[in-house]
Structure formats: C-alpha cells, structure tokens
C-alpha cells in the first residue's frame, strides 16, 4: 500500500508542476502542451487508484481537447500585454487564497480519512447488481441505477454541440468585403 501512495504522490507532484507551468508561461503553445501533460497525469492517477474506465476516457478526451486548443493557438497573433502587479490586486488575491485554504483545512477535519470511504454502494445496489446482468459495475450504476443522470448528461452534451453549430453558422460570409 505504501508504494501505491508513493506513486500517487509522485504523479500528483508532476501534475502540480505541469499546472504551474501551463498557467505561467508566456508562449501559448507550450502552455497547451503542458495542459496535455496534466491530463495524462490525471489518467495515471486513475490507473494507480484502480479505475481503468476513467483512465481510458480521460486519455481520449485529453487528446481531443489538446488538438482543439492547438488548432486555435497556432498561427494567430497574440498581442497581450504583461500583467501589471499593483499592491491591492496582490493583496486581494492573497486574501482569497488564504480563505480557501483555511476553509479547506477546517472542512477536511470532518471528512473521512483517505482510503476509507463510508459509502458501500448500499446493500440494495449490491443485491441488485447480481441480477442486473452487467458485469461491469460502473456501467451498471451509470446506465441502470442512475439512468436519469445519463439522460441529463446526454442533454447537456447535445445543448453544447448545438451552441457550437449556432455560433459557427455564418462561416460562409466574408465579413471583410
């Protein structure tokens, strides 16, 4: 169990460094690539913890998102000026961060310790899972016990894609003529 924890902490440290580099660096292409590294680190965490379903989905989704971002970022001029740091701005940001950390510290005392969740998926789920006929318990939860949530998710994805179509609809017209 200790090597699992060591691996976990190592990958999380890698993710933190990748996130800091992705947010801070000036070149847009490098920050998008570091975002890809962050996503792959999350897939590694899923594998270490024992959730291969999530790792599979996370890898493919990360590839799609990085390709989308690279195609918008490359070959477009970026004329952003640097951020001017003045004291009220830095003080406000520091106060917000301190408040979040303090709140997290207080809340996490009440949380169950890491590695011992109280939820056992319910005795009724367990008994019904044997009669659901699906051997993959995650799919059984997603499509059999919680099918309403999947219907809601299908609706949200549909709405987002329709939004993309509506925004890109007049692409044939040239606006500079």
């Amino acid at each position, binding site marked *: 169990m200790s090597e699992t924890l060591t691996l976990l902490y190592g990958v999380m440290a890698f993710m933190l460094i990748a996130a800091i580099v992705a947010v801070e660096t000036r070149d847009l292409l490098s920050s998008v690539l570091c975002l890809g590294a962050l996503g792959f680190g999350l897939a590694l965490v899923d594998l270490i913890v024992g959730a291969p379903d999530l790792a599979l*989905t996370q890898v*493919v989704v990360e590839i799609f998102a990085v390709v989308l971002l690279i195609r918008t970022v490359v070959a477009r001029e970026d004329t952003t000026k640097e951020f001017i740091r003045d004291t009220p701005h830095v003080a406000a940001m520091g106060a917000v961060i301190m408040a979040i950390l303090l709140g997290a510290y207080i809340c996490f005392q009440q949380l169950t310790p890491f590695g011992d969740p109280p939820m056992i998926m319910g005795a009724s789920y367990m008994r019904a899972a044997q009669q659901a006929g*699906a*051997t*993959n318990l995650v*799919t059984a939860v997603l499509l*059999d016990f919680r099918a309403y949530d999947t219907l809601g998710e299908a609706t949200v994805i549909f709405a987002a*894609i329709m939004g*993309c179509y509506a925004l*890109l609809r007049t692409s044939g017209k040239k606006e500079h003529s």
Partner: protein
Amino acid sequence: MRGMTPIVKTITALLIGFIMLFGFYIILTGHLSPGGGFAGGVICAAGLLLVVLAFGADTVKERMGHNMAVLWEGLGAIGFLAVALLGFITGTFFAHFLPQDVGFSFKLFTGGSILYQNLAIGLKVGAGLFGAFLMLAAFREAERGGRGNGEGDRS
C-alpha cells in the same frame, strides 16, 4: 484546409478502419469490461478527427457533410429517449424490457437494454464531436481565405 503530405494520407487510410473497429468494440462491450458509450464515442470521433486533419476539411465535407453529422447525432439522441420510453411497456420509465441474464456469463446480450443505451450514446457523442470539429475546420479555412494574407504554411 490543405491537408498533409501523402505519407500521412496513406497511413491514415490504412489505420482508420482499425480505429473505428476499436471504437465500436469499446461501445459494444461496455457492460462487460471497462469502456462504455462515452469512451467509445470519443474514440470514434478522434478517428474521424484524424481523417479531417489529414485530408483537409473540404474533401471531407464533400463525402460526409455537416448535415449527415447532425442527422446521426439526432438519431442517437432519439434512440436513447426511445429506449427510455419503451421501458413503459414493462412498468416504469427506463425499465428493462428485454430479458436479463442472471448468470453474468460475459455474453453480449446480457444486461437488458444497457447494450442499446450504449449504442445510442456512442452514436450521439461521436457524431456530435465530429460535426463540431468539421465546422471548426471549415470556419478556419473560410476565415483564412477571407483575410488573404499569408500566415505561413502551417495548417
């Protein structure tokens, strides 16, 4: 979009069959091993994204235009709702109306209507993401054509 070199085009033409086959496999055996409709749908969309990148958006728009992507996505959404409403035959919303195998023997037709739900979701997610990316590539091509200045040969 101008597409890429002939090497990339040849390799894509050889590989696209295997990518789509793997995507369909992940969708179909979602209830037996890790995977499911969402992961399989995104894999199929990523394969079609490879085709759009390699051959250019104009070529793909002639063969499989934007209207067909919208049609398949609508069919996927209607299919999912149909599976849900057909559950009224045996009782409540979303009830299983097909027999379920009680012995979980890793066969394909166990699990009632989970298989059809997976298929509908995979179709919907795959077609939707492919259509969005196709419109994005065509929009970028129109924008570059409208501006007219050379921005290098990077696609």
